[in-house]
Protein backbone atom coordinates (compact mmCIF):
# COMPACT_ATOMS: atom_id res chain seq x y z
CA UNK A 1 0.00 0.00 0.00
CA UNK A 2 1.11 3.56 -0.60
CA UNK A 3 0.25 5.01 2.76
CA UNK A 4 3.64 6.33 3.84
CA UNK A 5 4.95 7.44 7.18
CA UNK A 6 5.47 11.15 6.88
CA UNK A 7 9.08 12.20 6.57
CA UNK A 8 8.37 15.90 6.90
CA UNK A 9 6.43 16.05 10.13
CA UNK A 10 6.28 19.03 12.39
CA UNK A 11 9.27 18.05 14.45
CA UNK A 12 11.44 17.93 11.33
CA UNK A 13 10.10 21.03 9.59
CA UNK A 14 12.67 23.76 9.40
CA UNK A 15 11.79 27.37 9.99
CA UNK A 16 12.89 28.90 6.72
CA UNK A 17 12.28 32.53 7.55
CA UNK A 18 15.05 34.89 6.64
CA UNK A 19 14.72 37.91 8.93
CA UNK A 20 14.90 38.42 12.68
CA UNK A 21 11.47 38.19 14.29
CA UNK A 22 11.84 41.46 16.17
CA UNK A 23 9.90 44.65 15.40
CA UNK A 24 12.29 46.09 12.77
CA UNK A 25 12.72 42.70 11.09
CA UNK A 26 9.01 41.99 11.04
CA UNK A 27 8.15 45.45 9.73
CA UNK A 28 10.65 44.90 6.92
CA UNK A 29 9.07 41.51 6.21
CA UNK A 30 5.67 43.21 6.14
CA UNK A 31 6.79 44.86 2.88
CA UNK A 32 8.24 41.66 1.39
CA UNK A 33 7.20 40.97 -2.24
CA UNK A 34 5.97 37.51 -1.17
CA UNK A 35 2.46 37.62 0.38
CA UNK A 36 3.27 34.51 2.42
CA UNK A 37 6.15 36.37 4.10
CA UNK A 38 3.88 39.37 4.67
CA UNK A 39 1.18 37.19 6.24
CA UNK A 40 3.67 35.58 8.61
CA UNK A 41 5.09 38.97 9.53
CA UNK A 42 1.61 40.33 10.23
CA UNK A 43 0.77 37.22 12.27
CA UNK A 44 3.94 37.47 14.36
CA UNK A 45 3.47 41.20 14.89
CA UNK A 46 0.29 40.41 16.84
CA UNK A 47 2.62 39.47 19.69
CA UNK A 48 4.24 42.92 19.76
CA UNK A 49 1.97 45.62 21.25
CA UNK A 50 4.10 48.39 19.71
CA UNK A 51 3.40 47.04 16.22
CA UNK A 52 -0.01 48.62 15.64
CA UNK A 53 1.30 51.74 13.87
CA UNK A 54 3.31 49.66 11.41
CA UNK A 55 0.33 47.39 10.76
CA UNK A 56 -2.03 50.34 10.22
CA UNK A 57 0.48 51.96 7.86
CA UNK A 58 0.75 48.74 5.86
CA UNK A 59 -3.03 48.45 5.69
CA UNK A 60 -3.13 51.74 3.78
CA UNK A 61 -1.04 50.31 0.91
CA UNK A 62 -1.67 46.54 1.07
CA UNK A 63 -3.62 45.17 -1.90
CA UNK A 64 -3.50 41.40 -1.27
CA UNK A 65 -6.75 40.33 0.49
CA UNK A 66 -5.10 37.44 2.34
CA UNK A 67 -2.55 39.80 3.88
CA UNK A 68 -5.20 42.42 4.71
CA UNK A 69 -7.17 39.79 6.57
CA UNK A 70 -4.21 38.74 8.71
CA UNK A 71 -3.26 42.37 9.42
CA UNK A 72 -6.80 43.06 10.65
CA UNK A 73 -6.71 39.97 12.87
CA UNK A 74 -3.41 41.12 14.38
CA UNK A 75 -4.74 44.64 14.96
CA UNK A 76 -7.74 43.10 16.72
CA UNK A 77 -5.42 41.00 18.87
CA UNK A 78 -3.38 44.10 19.83
CA UNK A 79 -6.49 46.27 20.27
CA UNK A 80 -4.74 49.44 21.43
CA UNK A 81 -5.92 52.96 20.57
CA UNK A 82 -3.83 53.17 17.40
CA UNK A 83 -5.19 49.82 16.23
CA UNK A 84 -8.80 50.84 16.82
CA UNK A 85 -8.23 54.17 15.08
CA UNK A 86 -6.90 52.25 12.09
CA UNK A 87 -9.94 49.98 12.10
CA UNK A 88 -12.38 52.89 12.24
CA UNK A 89 -10.60 54.52 9.29
CA UNK A 90 -11.39 51.39 7.29
CA UNK A 91 -15.13 52.18 7.55
CA UNK A 92 -14.49 54.98 5.03
CA UNK A 93 -12.73 52.71 2.56
CA UNK A 94 -14.15 52.00 -0.90
CA UNK A 95 -12.76 48.48 -0.57
CA UNK A 96 -15.78 46.41 0.48
CA UNK A 97 -13.69 43.49 1.69
CA UNK A 98 -11.57 45.75 3.89
CA UNK A 99 -14.62 47.55 5.26
CA UNK A 100 -16.50 44.37 6.12
CA UNK A 101 -13.43 42.78 7.68
CA UNK A 102 -12.88 45.91 9.77
CA UNK A 103 -16.51 45.81 10.97
CA UNK A 104 -16.01 42.18 12.05
CA UNK A 105 -12.76 43.13 13.78
CA UNK A 106 -14.36 46.03 15.66
CA UNK A 107 -17.08 43.73 16.98
CA UNK A 108 -14.37 41.88 18.87
CA UNK A 109 -13.25 45.00 20.77
CA UNK A 110 -16.26 46.28 22.73
CA UNK A 111 -14.42 48.27 25.39
CA UNK A 112 -11.86 49.67 22.97
CA UNK A 113 -14.45 50.64 20.33
CA UNK A 114 -16.95 52.15 22.80
CA UNK A 115 -15.20 55.56 23.09
CA UNK A 116 -15.35 55.91 19.29
CA UNK A 117 -18.98 54.88 18.90
CA UNK A 118 -20.56 58.21 19.84
CA UNK A 119 -18.56 59.96 17.11
CA UNK A 120 -19.15 57.27 14.49
CA UNK A 121 -22.92 57.36 15.03
CA UNK A 122 -23.08 61.08 14.21
CA UNK A 123 -20.61 60.95 11.34
CA UNK A 124 -21.67 63.17 8.39
CA UNK A 125 -21.56 60.14 6.08
CA UNK A 126 -24.70 57.98 6.50
CA UNK A 127 -22.80 54.93 5.24
CA UNK A 128 -20.33 55.27 8.10
CA UNK A 129 -23.29 55.54 10.52
CA UNK A 130 -24.80 52.35 9.05
CA UNK A 131 -21.47 50.56 9.38
CA UNK A 132 -21.25 51.73 12.99
CA UNK A 133 -24.68 50.18 13.65
CA UNK A 134 -23.40 47.02 11.94
CA UNK A 135 -20.60 46.95 14.51
CA UNK A 136 -23.20 47.18 17.30
CA UNK A 137 -24.85 44.03 15.95
CA UNK A 138 -22.41 41.83 17.85
CA UNK A 139 -20.76 44.30 20.20
CA UNK A 140 -20.90 42.98 23.77
CA UNK A 141 -21.25 46.32 25.48
CA UNK A 142 -23.88 47.58 27.96
CA UNK A 143 -24.46 50.82 26.01
CA UNK A 144 -25.63 49.13 22.81
CA UNK A 145 -29.34 49.68 23.47
CA UNK A 146 -28.74 53.29 24.51
CA UNK A 147 -26.79 53.99 21.30
CA UNK A 148 -29.51 52.40 19.16
CA UNK A 149 -32.29 54.35 20.88
CA UNK A 150 -30.36 57.55 20.19
CA UNK A 151 -30.02 56.59 16.52
CA UNK A 152 -33.74 55.94 15.98
CA UNK A 153 -34.63 59.06 17.93
CA UNK A 154 -32.26 61.46 16.20
CA UNK A 155 -30.92 60.18 12.88
CA UNK A 156 -32.63 61.77 9.89
CA UNK A 157 -31.61 59.06 7.43
CA UNK A 158 -34.18 56.31 6.92
CA UNK A 159 -31.61 53.62 6.10
CA UNK A 160 -29.62 54.29 9.24
CA UNK A 161 -32.81 54.08 11.32
CA UNK A 162 -33.90 50.90 9.53
CA UNK A 163 -30.59 49.22 10.36
CA UNK A 164 -30.84 50.30 13.99
CA UNK A 165 -34.47 49.31 14.50
CA UNK A 166 -33.78 45.79 13.21
CA UNK A 167 -31.18 45.36 15.89
CA UNK A 168 -33.36 46.90 18.61
CA UNK A 169 -35.79 44.03 18.08
CA UNK A 170 -33.08 41.76 19.41
CA UNK A 171 -31.38 43.78 22.11
CA UNK A 172 -34.08 46.29 23.08
CA UNK A 173 -36.09 46.45 26.29
CA UNK A 174 -39.13 48.43 27.46
CA UNK A 175 -36.80 51.46 27.49
CA UNK A 176 -36.92 51.50 23.70
CA UNK A 177 -40.74 51.67 23.45
CA UNK A 178 -41.18 55.48 23.38
CA UNK A 179 -38.41 55.89 20.79
CA UNK A 180 -39.93 53.13 18.64
CA UNK A 181 -43.33 54.87 18.65
CA UNK A 182 -41.65 58.18 17.84
CA UNK A 183 -39.80 56.52 14.97
CA UNK A 184 -43.10 55.22 13.54
CA UNK A 185 -44.52 58.74 13.70
CA UNK A 186 -41.43 60.25 12.09
CA UNK A 187 -41.42 57.82 9.16
CA UNK A 188 -45.18 57.30 8.80
CA UNK A 189 -45.00 56.69 5.06
CA UNK A 190 -42.09 54.22 5.16
CA UNK A 191 -43.61 50.71 5.15
CA UNK A 192 -40.38 48.99 6.16
CA UNK A 193 -39.91 51.21 9.20
CA UNK A 194 -43.52 50.52 10.24
CA UNK A 195 -42.98 46.77 9.89
CA UNK A 196 -39.61 46.70 11.65
CA UNK A 197 -40.72 48.99 14.47
CA UNK A 198 -43.87 46.89 15.05
CA UNK A 199 -41.76 43.73 15.20
CA UNK A 200 -39.32 45.38 17.61
CA UNK A 201 -42.21 46.58 19.80
CA UNK A 202 -43.63 43.06 19.87
CA UNK A 203 -40.27 41.63 20.87
CA UNK A 204 -39.26 44.15 23.51
CA UNK A 205 -42.61 43.63 25.21
CA UNK A 206 -42.50 39.84 25.01
CA UNK A 207 -41.49 38.63 28.44
Amino acid at each position, binding site marked *: *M*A*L*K*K*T*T*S*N*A*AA*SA*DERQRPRDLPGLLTALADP*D*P*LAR*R*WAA*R*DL*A*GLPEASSGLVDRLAVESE*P*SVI*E*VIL*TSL*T*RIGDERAVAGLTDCLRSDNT*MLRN*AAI*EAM*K*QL*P*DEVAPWMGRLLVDPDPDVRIFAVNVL*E*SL*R*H*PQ*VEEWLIRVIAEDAHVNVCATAVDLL*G*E*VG*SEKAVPALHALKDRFGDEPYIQFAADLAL*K*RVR*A*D
Partner: protein
Amino acid sequence: MSANPVSLPLAISDEDFRKFREFFYRKTGILFEDSKRYFVDKRLLERMEATQSDSFRAYFTMVRFQAAGTELQTLINAMTVNETYFFREEYQFTCLVNSMLAEIVARRGDSKRPIRIWSVPSSSGEEPYGIAIYLLEHWPQIDQVDIEILSSDIDTSILTAAREGHFSARSVQHLPANLLAKYFRRRGDHYQIVDSLREVVEFTRANVTDPADMRLHRDFDVIFCRNLLIYFDDLSRKQTAESFYDALNPGGFICLGHSESMSRISSLFRVRKFPEAIVYQKPWGAR
Protein backbone atom coordinates in the same frame (compact mmCIF):
# COMPACT_ATOMS: atom_id res chain seq x y z
CA MET B 1 -48.34 44.06 42.31
CA SER B 2 -48.85 41.14 44.69
CA ALA B 3 -47.60 41.48 48.23
CA ASN B 4 -46.43 37.89 48.10
CA PRO B 5 -45.10 37.39 44.61
CA VAL B 6 -45.12 33.76 43.55
CA SER B 7 -42.08 32.76 41.53
CA LEU B 8 -43.30 31.31 38.26
CA PRO B 9 -41.51 28.39 36.62
CA LEU B 10 -39.03 29.50 33.97
CA ALA B 11 -40.31 29.24 30.43
CA ILE B 12 -39.32 30.11 26.88
CA SER B 13 -42.03 31.86 24.88
CA ASP B 14 -42.44 31.49 21.11
CA GLU B 15 -40.99 35.00 20.63
CA ASP B 16 -38.07 34.20 22.94
CA PHE B 17 -37.34 31.09 20.89
CA ARG B 18 -37.43 33.02 17.60
CA LYS B 19 -35.20 35.76 19.01
CA PHE B 20 -32.73 33.23 20.37
CA ARG B 21 -32.77 31.23 17.15
CA GLU B 22 -31.83 34.29 15.05
CA PHE B 23 -29.08 35.31 17.47
CA PHE B 24 -27.62 31.80 17.71
CA TYR B 25 -27.66 31.39 13.94
CA ARG B 26 -25.79 34.64 13.48
CA LYS B 27 -23.18 33.62 16.04
CA THR B 28 -22.65 30.01 15.00
CA GLY B 29 -24.33 29.28 11.68
CA ILE B 30 -26.45 26.65 13.42
CA LEU B 31 -30.14 27.05 12.63
CA PHE B 32 -32.63 25.30 14.91
CA GLU B 33 -35.79 24.23 13.12
CA ASP B 34 -39.09 24.32 14.99
CA SER B 35 -38.73 20.57 15.39
CA LYS B 36 -35.74 21.22 17.68
CA ARG B 37 -37.78 23.42 19.97
CA TYR B 38 -37.90 20.93 22.84
CA PHE B 39 -34.14 20.35 22.68
CA VAL B 40 -33.36 24.08 22.57
CA ASP B 41 -35.80 24.99 25.35
CA LYS B 42 -34.48 22.23 27.58
CA ARG B 43 -30.88 23.40 27.29
CA LEU B 44 -31.75 27.06 27.59
CA LEU B 45 -33.71 26.37 30.77
CA GLU B 46 -30.81 24.34 32.16
CA ARG B 47 -28.42 27.24 31.53
CA MET B 48 -30.91 29.76 32.93
CA GLU B 49 -31.12 27.71 36.10
CA ALA B 50 -27.34 27.23 36.29
CA THR B 51 -26.77 30.98 35.97
CA GLN B 52 -29.65 31.81 38.34
CA SER B 53 -31.34 33.93 35.69
CA ASP B 54 -34.89 34.75 36.67
CA SER B 55 -36.19 35.14 33.10
CA PHE B 56 -35.24 34.41 29.53
CA ARG B 57 -34.67 38.12 28.99
CA ALA B 58 -32.19 38.32 31.87
CA TYR B 59 -30.35 35.27 30.60
CA PHE B 60 -30.34 36.44 26.98
CA THR B 61 -29.02 39.86 27.99
CA MET B 62 -26.18 38.18 29.88
CA VAL B 63 -25.29 35.94 26.93
CA ARG B 64 -25.53 38.82 24.49
CA PHE B 65 -23.48 41.36 26.42
CA GLN B 66 -21.16 39.42 28.74
CA ALA B 67 -17.76 40.88 27.84
CA ALA B 68 -15.82 37.64 28.30
CA GLY B 69 -18.32 35.64 26.24
CA THR B 70 -17.98 32.63 28.54
CA GLU B 71 -21.69 31.93 28.89
CA LEU B 72 -22.17 32.03 25.12
CA GLN B 73 -19.38 29.48 24.79
CA THR B 74 -20.93 27.28 27.49
CA LEU B 75 -24.25 27.52 25.67
CA ILE B 76 -22.66 26.59 22.34
CA ASN B 77 -21.06 23.57 24.00
CA ALA B 78 -24.43 22.56 25.42
CA MET B 79 -26.15 22.93 22.04
CA THR B 80 -23.52 21.00 20.05
CA VAL B 81 -23.13 17.49 21.34
CA ASN B 82 -20.20 15.76 19.70
CA GLU B 83 -19.12 12.17 19.80
CA THR B 84 -16.10 10.64 18.11
CA TYR B 85 -16.45 7.36 16.25
CA PHE B 86 -15.11 5.78 13.07
CA PHE B 87 -16.52 7.12 9.80
CA ARG B 88 -18.32 10.00 11.49
CA GLU B 89 -19.60 12.39 8.79
CA GLU B 90 -18.56 9.80 6.23
CA TYR B 91 -19.83 11.90 3.33
CA GLN B 92 -16.65 13.98 3.60
CA PHE B 93 -14.50 10.87 3.20
CA THR B 94 -16.55 10.03 0.12
CA CYS B 95 -15.90 13.56 -1.11
CA LEU B 96 -12.18 13.06 -0.44
CA VAL B 97 -11.87 9.94 -2.61
CA ASN B 98 -14.36 10.94 -5.32
CA SER B 99 -13.74 14.66 -5.74
CA MET B 100 -10.96 16.31 -3.77
CA LEU B 101 -8.18 13.82 -4.49
CA ALA B 102 -9.24 13.60 -8.14
CA GLU B 103 -8.74 17.34 -8.52
CA ILE B 104 -5.45 17.37 -6.62
CA VAL B 105 -4.05 14.48 -8.66
CA ALA B 106 -5.19 16.03 -11.93
CA ARG B 107 -3.54 19.37 -11.11
CA ARG B 108 -0.23 18.03 -9.86
CA GLY B 109 0.75 16.35 -13.12
CA ASP B 110 3.52 13.81 -12.69
CA SER B 111 4.75 15.13 -9.36
CA LYS B 112 6.19 12.43 -7.13
CA ARG B 113 5.51 14.43 -4.00
CA PRO B 114 3.26 12.56 -1.58
CA ILE B 115 -0.23 13.92 -1.00
CA ARG B 116 -0.39 15.10 2.60
CA ILE B 117 -3.51 14.94 4.76
CA TRP B 118 -3.74 16.56 8.19
CA SER B 119 -6.36 15.51 10.71
CA VAL B 120 -6.70 17.90 13.62
CA PRO B 121 -7.59 17.41 16.43
CA SER B 122 -6.59 13.76 16.50
CA SER B 123 -8.62 12.97 19.59
CA SER B 124 -8.07 9.25 20.20
CA GLY B 125 -7.37 8.55 16.54
CA GLU B 126 -10.71 7.59 15.00
CA GLU B 127 -10.50 10.22 12.28
CA PRO B 128 -6.92 9.74 10.99
CA TYR B 129 -7.17 5.94 11.11
CA GLY B 130 -10.62 6.18 9.55
CA ILE B 131 -9.19 8.25 6.67
CA ALA B 132 -6.47 5.63 6.17
CA ILE B 133 -9.00 2.80 6.05
CA TYR B 134 -11.26 4.76 3.71
CA LEU B 135 -8.40 5.44 1.29
CA LEU B 136 -7.33 1.81 1.26
CA GLU B 137 -10.86 0.62 0.65
CA HIS B 138 -12.29 3.27 -1.66
CA TRP B 139 -9.50 5.05 -3.54
CA PRO B 140 -8.19 2.93 -6.41
CA GLN B 141 -5.16 5.19 -6.96
CA ILE B 142 -3.75 4.39 -3.55
CA ASP B 143 -1.45 1.94 -5.33
CA GLN B 144 0.01 4.65 -7.57
CA VAL B 145 0.11 7.73 -5.33
CA ASP B 146 1.86 8.09 -2.00
CA ILE B 147 -0.22 9.51 0.82
CA GLU B 148 0.98 10.79 4.18
CA ILE B 149 -1.45 11.17 7.06
CA LEU B 150 -0.47 13.40 9.96
CA SER B 151 -2.71 13.96 12.95
CA SER B 152 -2.22 16.47 15.77
CA ASP B 153 -3.71 17.34 19.12
CA ILE B 154 -2.91 19.74 21.92
CA ASP B 155 -3.32 16.96 24.51
CA THR B 156 -0.24 14.73 24.80
CA SER B 157 -2.08 12.02 26.75
CA ILE B 158 -4.67 11.66 23.98
CA LEU B 159 -1.82 11.48 21.44
CA THR B 160 -0.32 8.55 23.37
CA ALA B 161 -3.71 6.83 23.30
CA ALA B 162 -4.09 7.54 19.57
CA ARG B 163 -0.69 5.97 18.83
CA GLU B 164 -1.76 2.88 20.79
CA GLY B 165 -4.97 2.70 18.76
CA HIS B 166 -7.33 1.05 21.25
CA PHE B 167 -11.04 1.65 20.62
CA SER B 168 -14.27 0.77 22.37
CA ALA B 169 -17.04 -1.23 20.73
CA ARG B 170 -19.09 1.96 20.62
CA SER B 171 -16.34 3.73 18.70
CA VAL B 172 -16.28 1.10 15.93
CA GLN B 173 -20.02 0.42 15.82
CA HIS B 174 -20.54 2.10 12.43
CA LEU B 175 -17.79 0.14 10.70
CA PRO B 176 -18.86 -2.73 8.42
CA ALA B 177 -17.98 -6.12 9.91
CA ASN B 178 -15.52 -6.93 7.15
CA LEU B 179 -13.51 -3.77 7.82
CA LEU B 180 -13.54 -4.42 11.54
CA ALA B 181 -12.13 -7.87 10.92
CA LYS B 182 -9.59 -6.57 8.43
CA TYR B 183 -8.19 -3.56 10.27
CA PHE B 184 -8.69 -4.34 13.97
CA ARG B 185 -7.73 -7.01 16.47
CA ARG B 186 -10.05 -7.91 19.28
CA ARG B 187 -8.47 -7.23 22.69
CA GLY B 188 -10.96 -8.30 25.37
CA ASP B 189 -13.80 -5.80 25.40
CA HIS B 190 -12.19 -3.42 22.93
CA TYR B 191 -10.43 -3.32 19.56
CA GLN B 192 -6.93 -2.33 18.53
CA ILE B 193 -6.08 -0.99 15.09
CA VAL B 194 -3.61 -3.16 13.15
CA ASP B 195 0.10 -2.34 13.37
CA SER B 196 0.38 -1.63 9.64
CA LEU B 197 -1.91 1.40 10.11
CA ARG B 198 -0.38 2.46 13.42
CA GLU B 199 2.95 2.59 11.61
CA VAL B 200 1.86 4.91 8.83
CA VAL B 201 -0.23 7.49 10.68
CA GLU B 202 2.02 10.09 12.33
CA PHE B 203 0.87 11.90 15.46
CA THR B 204 2.28 15.26 16.60
CA ARG B 205 1.44 17.74 19.32
CA ALA B 206 0.11 21.04 18.01
CA ASN B 207 -1.87 23.91 19.42
CA VAL B 208 -3.69 25.30 16.40
CA THR B 209 -4.03 28.70 18.06
CA ASP B 210 -0.26 29.02 18.49
CA PRO B 211 1.42 30.51 15.40
CA ALA B 212 4.77 28.95 16.37
CA ASP B 213 3.22 25.45 16.33
CA MET B 214 1.32 26.16 13.14
CA ARG B 215 4.41 27.42 11.33
CA LEU B 216 5.86 23.91 11.57
CA HIS B 217 2.82 22.28 9.97
CA ARG B 218 2.65 22.99 6.26
CA ASP B 219 2.47 21.62 2.71
CA PHE B 220 -0.86 19.88 3.26
CA ASP B 221 -3.25 19.06 0.45
CA VAL B 222 -6.25 18.32 2.66
CA ILE B 223 -6.99 19.35 6.23
CA PHE B 224 -9.77 17.79 8.28
CA CYS B 225 -10.65 20.09 11.18
CA ARG B 226 -14.12 19.06 12.20
CA ASN B 227 -16.04 20.26 15.23
CA LEU B 228 -13.14 22.10 16.80
CA LEU B 229 -13.41 25.73 15.68
CA ILE B 230 -16.94 26.00 17.01
CA TYR B 231 -15.50 25.84 20.52
CA PHE B 232 -13.19 28.83 19.95
CA ASP B 233 -13.96 32.50 20.37
CA ASP B 234 -14.37 34.47 17.16
CA LEU B 235 -10.86 35.89 17.07
CA SER B 236 -9.10 32.57 17.78
CA ARG B 237 -11.30 30.91 15.16
CA LYS B 238 -10.23 33.48 12.59
CA GLN B 239 -6.54 33.28 13.52
CA THR B 240 -6.65 29.50 13.23
CA ALA B 241 -8.36 29.62 9.83
CA GLU B 242 -5.68 32.03 8.60
CA SER B 243 -2.95 29.68 9.84
CA PHE B 244 -4.65 26.77 8.05
CA TYR B 245 -4.53 28.85 4.87
CA ASP B 246 -0.75 28.98 5.11
CA ALA B 247 -0.53 25.30 6.08
CA LEU B 248 -2.26 24.32 2.82
CA ASN B 249 -0.70 24.00 -0.60
CA PRO B 250 -2.40 26.07 -3.33
CA GLY B 251 -5.58 24.23 -4.29
CA GLY B 252 -5.64 22.43 -0.94
CA PHE B 253 -8.93 21.70 0.78
CA ILE B 254 -10.22 22.06 4.32
CA CYS B 255 -13.17 20.10 5.69
CA LEU B 256 -15.08 21.47 8.68
CA GLY B 257 -17.83 19.92 10.79
CA HIS B 258 -21.40 19.88 9.52
CA SER B 259 -22.41 22.80 11.74
CA GLU B 260 -19.37 24.92 10.89
CA SER B 261 -18.94 27.28 7.96
CA MET B 262 -15.68 28.85 6.85
CA SER B 263 -17.69 31.61 5.19
CA ARG B 264 -18.57 32.88 8.66
CA ILE B 265 -14.94 32.81 9.77
CA SER B 266 -12.69 33.97 6.94
CA SER B 267 -13.00 35.13 3.35
CA LEU B 268 -9.69 33.58 2.32
CA PHE B 269 -11.13 30.30 1.09
CA ARG B 270 -13.28 29.42 -1.91
CA VAL B 271 -16.45 27.49 -1.20
CA ARG B 272 -16.47 24.27 -3.24
CA LYS B 273 -19.77 22.46 -3.65
CA PHE B 274 -18.99 18.89 -4.62
CA PRO B 275 -21.77 16.31 -5.06
CA GLU B 276 -20.91 14.76 -1.70
CA ALA B 277 -20.10 17.78 0.48
CA ILE B 278 -19.34 21.46 0.75
CA VAL B 279 -15.65 22.01 1.50
CA TYR B 280 -13.31 25.00 1.41
CA GLN B 281 -10.33 25.51 -0.85
CA LYS B 282 -7.23 27.66 -0.91
CA PRO B 283 -7.36 28.99 -4.48
CA TRP B 284 -5.05 27.48 -7.07
CA GLY B 285 -2.43 30.11 -7.80
CA ALA B 286 -2.59 31.57 -4.29
CA ARG B 287 0.72 32.04 -2.57
